[in-house]
């Protein structure tokens, strides 16, 4: 439900493959782990980006500036969580911007929104 909320909120329609978070399932479904962008203190995606399109905003969220993205995919290669996705139609990289649609849709309370200010401070140091 989180993935469907994400893909539709971002305007892609309904398909979990078009969502900006993943679910990893192990041991025949005994383990299910949502994988989201953790807004790394040292974001590899930003370091890998050759055009400077990825930066942290004032709220501490790592965002992609679509106008500067060349669609090379180096950021996706660099992301250890594998949560940077390529929007095939636009030819741009896309990622979670902490909009919270997934959190709202989660029926069990497994997802939550945490403040990014600590991360932003950590990054400054």
């Amino acid at each position, binding site marked *: 439900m989180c993935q469907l909320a994400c893909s539709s909120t971002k305007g892609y329609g309904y*398909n979990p493959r078009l969502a900006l978070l993943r679910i990893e399932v192990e041991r*025949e479904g005994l383990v299910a782990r949502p994988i989201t962008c953790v807004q790394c203190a040292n974001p590899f995606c930003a370091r890998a980006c050759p055009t400077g399109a990825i930066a942290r905003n004032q709220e501490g969220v790592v965002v992609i500036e679509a106008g500067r993205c060349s669609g090379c995919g180096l950021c996706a290669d660099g992301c250890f969580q594998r949560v940077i996705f390529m929007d095939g139609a636009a030819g741009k990289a896309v990622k979670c911007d902490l909009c919270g649609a997934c959190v709202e*849709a989660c029926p069990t309370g497994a997802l939550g929104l945490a403040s990014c200010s600590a991360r932003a401070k950590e990054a400054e140091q």
Partner: protein
Amino acid sequence: MSFGYMGKILVVDLTRQRSQCHDLPGDIAAQVLGGKGLGAKLLAELVPTGANPLGAENALVYATGPLTGTNAPSMRGCVVTLSPLTGMFNDSYFGGHFSQELKYVGYDALVITGRAPEPVFLSINDGEAGFHPAGEIWGKDTYETYDLVRSRLNDSSYRISCIGPAGEHMVKFALVDCDPHRQAGRCGAGAVMGSKNLKAVAVRGSHPVRVKDPEAFKIAQARACAELRASQATQDLAEFSTVSVMPFSNEYGFFPVRNFTGGQYERAAELFADQHHRDVWMRHWACAGCPIHCGKMGMIRKGKYRGTICDNVEYETVGLLGGNLDISDVSALSYFNQVADRLGLDTISLGAVLSFVVEAYNRGMLSSTALEGLRPAFGALDSLLALTQLIARRQGIGHVLADGVRSAAEHIGQGSSEFAAHIQGLETPAWGPRGSYGMGLAYLTGDRGGCHQRGFPIGYETAGQWEGRQLADGHHLEDRAQVTIWEQNYLAALYSLTICEFGRSGISTSTYLDLLLAATGIRLTDAEFFRAGERIWNAIRMFNLEQGWSQDRAAMPDRFREPLPQGIMKGHRFRPGDEGQLLREYNQARGWDETGRPTEETIRRLGLPDLQARRILR
């Protein structure tokens, strides 16, 4: 652009190893909706009169609904085919992720026709169909098949549907397994897949499902979720799975015990949800886009099968493999359930066949020699597991039992049909029918045989109310036709939306229709929705008649003429003549003649000739 629907149907011809895409015209979609209605329409176009269900002329249809793949709560898919078990229409529903992925591939339905010369599996990646030799996967169980297919395609994100050894051997109650191990269980769709030499279908799609009015859809979706949260029945399912209904069914005497001799199990409490929770369950599990999470993933923690990772055992399986076979240990039962899932056997039919064998053996109608040296007994799991293996591969006596309980009783003779629990050739599920004339009528008139999911009058009889009116309990014959027809029409419409019946316990009709309107632009009133269901139900009756169905099949086995020995409904039985009275009132109320055939007037009133003339496949 299509909204809700993908607007396309893929027809795969296994004989020539070709595929062709057809449009789904909007006006037909508005009449058949999807799922059951769409599958019935495609089957009627494809399958000739008097077809052999296991011949190349039968078709296997995976059908989705207009809301499948969106976040409208609790939507499913179905497999539709001519059943080798009953010789009737079969629509069998499954949760999980496979049907959603089929839509993301770009199709509302996938139609499999013909027969491959050698075992194959099919892959569809964003619209492209590929045929792959499946020689080395043939013989593997359903769990192994998932791994092997994904590894052959070098992509673990494919969603799989497959058969186990039972489907390969055309066991007439073999199931189609759908990712991740949800089952289109009943009436032998797996045997049809096996007869086509088709081991698996793997799909992977990146197309989105789009809705026409996203804002209105969001509001209707939120209301559906709120209705589910407010429903006690849904909350019970969420916490305790389908086993939550067991105390109720056992109290009334609907629960099958030792080949349906009893209706109340003396060790029932050993099978209640708290026992599963203590010994097996680990966590909740949900199908795609469903907030209910009635599934429970677990690990057997005690005894011989300790360490086995398994799904929860559903209520029907607790009934048919549990009480009906006197297996009261949840660990053993969980293991038994998984063996059946791996082999690809419907646990309801399997349980009824095995309990029949035990009774026939106890009565001296089957010898140990005829049973490969086995001495089957109620409660003796090892002998029952050994028989299950024989059935799945049609070895020895398994060859006879693999054709279902009706056929097995005919083969064994000696009056064994008296205790073969089936109605219209379909093994009886864990709901009476003793204790409920309404349920009996639903079984006698079910479009895929005696199935509890095509109408559930028990709910209204025990509540004493139906649609705001008082209703007498299950001992009474009057009003049963009305209630059963209402249920059947409503469910035929809902199954064409391809809902899960567990969602139905919370979501209101108006919310379902608002979701449909916002997603597709199809605006239906309650009355039009019921009319659509009635049209589909009648179309399927016409199909069944063409395939040779006649009303003499609608009879109770003698087992249900014996008085129910326990429970609130104690003493109830089907007397000679009861079926006749129920069917007379039913046929009349439906606008059918005394043989159960829709009259010309009924056919015209429902617009069936027009629907028949408009074809999807040209």
